[in-house]
């Protein structure tokens, strides 16, 4: 039995790493994931590339395009994860847009998630109001549909948090994913709202890329999520990126240890 999302929060503050599947190829993605686990990542979000990722900044947009050009498909990603499972039982989640999941068929998609041990999905274009159409199917296969809250959520935070599954993804900033020099949102008050409504773990993502930011955010929540900074290393070094990704993830994880 593979570990679930909840297990990712068993050992103090969680470091959650995102990587786009298939950039530059799926064999490399598998290697990157194993290196990130070795470097201390507690949960990996495997990005299913989409032709039109409207919540992503330029770094992940370009990774999606490279991955699709390289022939990455939903089926091949499942095959890669099945292979990966021979080498690790670490918690895994998918992050991707609704259409590839919808088109694959909710039943087929979530049953394959269960089969390969992916215990959650994060779908940025599936808000609370629309979640109902797939969360029941996902639940029947033991897969969590992770909810997001944003700086604009205000009074919605409590409603969303009260029904959160797995963990709650706290969007740190307005706009799209990508590295930011400064996070100006009042995260502390968002966290206060969340804690009032739910005891599900909360992790902060969007914009985090330095160890200092990671530590600052980890003090406020149960974990931090880093995507673009890792994807950028994969873009820079391609198939040779593994040691660079290892080093970066280790540095980031070390910054939040013991907080």
């Amino acid at each position, binding site marked *: 039995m593979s570990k679930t999302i909840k297990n990712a929060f068993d050992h103090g503050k969680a470091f959650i790493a995102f990587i786009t599947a298939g950039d530059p190829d799926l064999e490399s993605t598998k290697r990157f994931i194993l290196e990130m686990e070795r470097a201390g990542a507690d949960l990996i979000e495997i990005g299913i590339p989409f*032709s*039109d990722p409207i919540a992503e900044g330029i770094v992940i947009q370009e990774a999606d395009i490279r991955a699709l050009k390289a022939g990455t498909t939903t089926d091949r990603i499942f095959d890669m994860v099945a292979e990966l499972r021979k080498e690790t039982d670490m918690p895994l989640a998918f992050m991707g847009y609704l259409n590839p999941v919808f088109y694959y068929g909710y039943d087929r998609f979530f049953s394959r998630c269960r089969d390969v041990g992916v215990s959650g999905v994060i779908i940025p274009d599936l*808000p609370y*109001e629309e979640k*109902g159409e797939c969360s029941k199917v996902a639940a029947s296969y033991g897969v969590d549909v992770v909810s997001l809250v944003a700086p604009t*959520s205000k009074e*919605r935070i409590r409603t969303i948090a009260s029904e959160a599954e797995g963990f709650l993804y706290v969007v740190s900033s307005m706009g799209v994913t990508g590295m930011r020099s400064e996070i100006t949102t009042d995260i502390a008050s968002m966290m206060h709202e969340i804690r009032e409504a739910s005891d599900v773990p909360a992790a902060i993502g969007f914009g985090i890329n330095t160890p200092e930011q990671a530590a600052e955010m980890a003090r406020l929540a149960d974990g931090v999520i880093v995507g673009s900074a890792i994807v950028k290393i994969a873009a820079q070094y391609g198939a040779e990126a593994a040691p660079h990704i290892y080093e970066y993830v280790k540095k980031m994880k070390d910054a939040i240890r013991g907080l």
Partner: protein
Amino acid sequence: MQTESRGRFGAFGGQYVPETLMNELIRLEESYEYYKNDPEFNAELTRLLNDYAGRPSLLYHAERMSQDLGGAQVYLKREDLNHTGAHKINNCLGQVLLAKKMGKTRVIAETGAGQHGVATATVAALMDMECEIFMGKEDTERQRLNVYRMELLGAKVHAVTSGTQVLKDAVNETMREWAGRVHDTHYVLGSVMGPHPFPTIVRDFQAVISKEARAQFLEATGELPDAVLACVGGGSNAMGMFYHFIGDEGVQLIGCEAAGRGIETGQHAATMATGTVGVFHGMKSYFCQNEYGQISPVYSISAGLDYPGIGPEHAYLRDSGRAQYVPVTDEEAVEAFEYLARTEGIICAIESAHALAHAMKIAPKMGKDQSILVCLSGRGDKDVAAIAKYRGIDLSE
């Protein structure tokens, strides 16, 4: 947990957007629901539509064309005579006025060929709003005149270099921009698409087309048309043209979509003919996509129809059998474009020529006592160079 969200047309529609935008969409819906029943708002909008945009637009009996085709009488609803040359201004006046009432100081919009961008920039100038337009880089090169037109009107035009650099990418980029700045900014979506409440808002602002046309047609002929035709990309002029005829069971509603170089070539934007149900740009509807749900690149000679999806209410009208949708190729549209110019002295938009082409196909098979009403959604000045190029003539200096 509710299982069916708001803003549905049967199974289609919905609000598939990042959480960051949800409160803004809710606020937009609440504001719209208030102002659409506000007599002051409606009086102001009507005044703008009439005194500024030149409404009501004419209903014109194309007698020479009807005679030449030898069948049904063809009538044209002349949206091409509106200020800025297309139906797009109807929606822009409504949405920018609404945005102003909501306290917004800045509007953003996507544009394909540039018609919606020009209309948005025009109304933004009129209402003293900051305006930024997102346009695929490829489209900015194909439609340089419209880029300059928008700049003349005081708008900032961003050439979108992400993805395939056309209309769908412009929509992506405008949504990203909006998610980064909602407090002072309204996204003036240009078609009956996107997340709820946009498909409803845009339809309502465009419904003035059929409200006028139905009354004008009754006045002119004493009866209703047998068929109402309009071109569809996202579907705003078609939805506006169909809306007040939906209850008239005897009136056939036909949307004409872009078949590009032919359905069989794969180079087209015929969403209804070839698309499948999916979720994209905030809505559940029909889309051109591959077997993994990746959105397909589409093609049409008409930049305004060059979109891989269609508004959710059209998906519903099709599946419920109330409307039908037919593909029209580049070649057929260009022939119709030239035909209307020679026969009636009207140079129409290449988009509208798709609807006209279908009218030319069906009119000869109908009786002389029958009638077809076509929405001439825009004028064709913008297309002259592209048509010349299609015919092998290079107009550039």
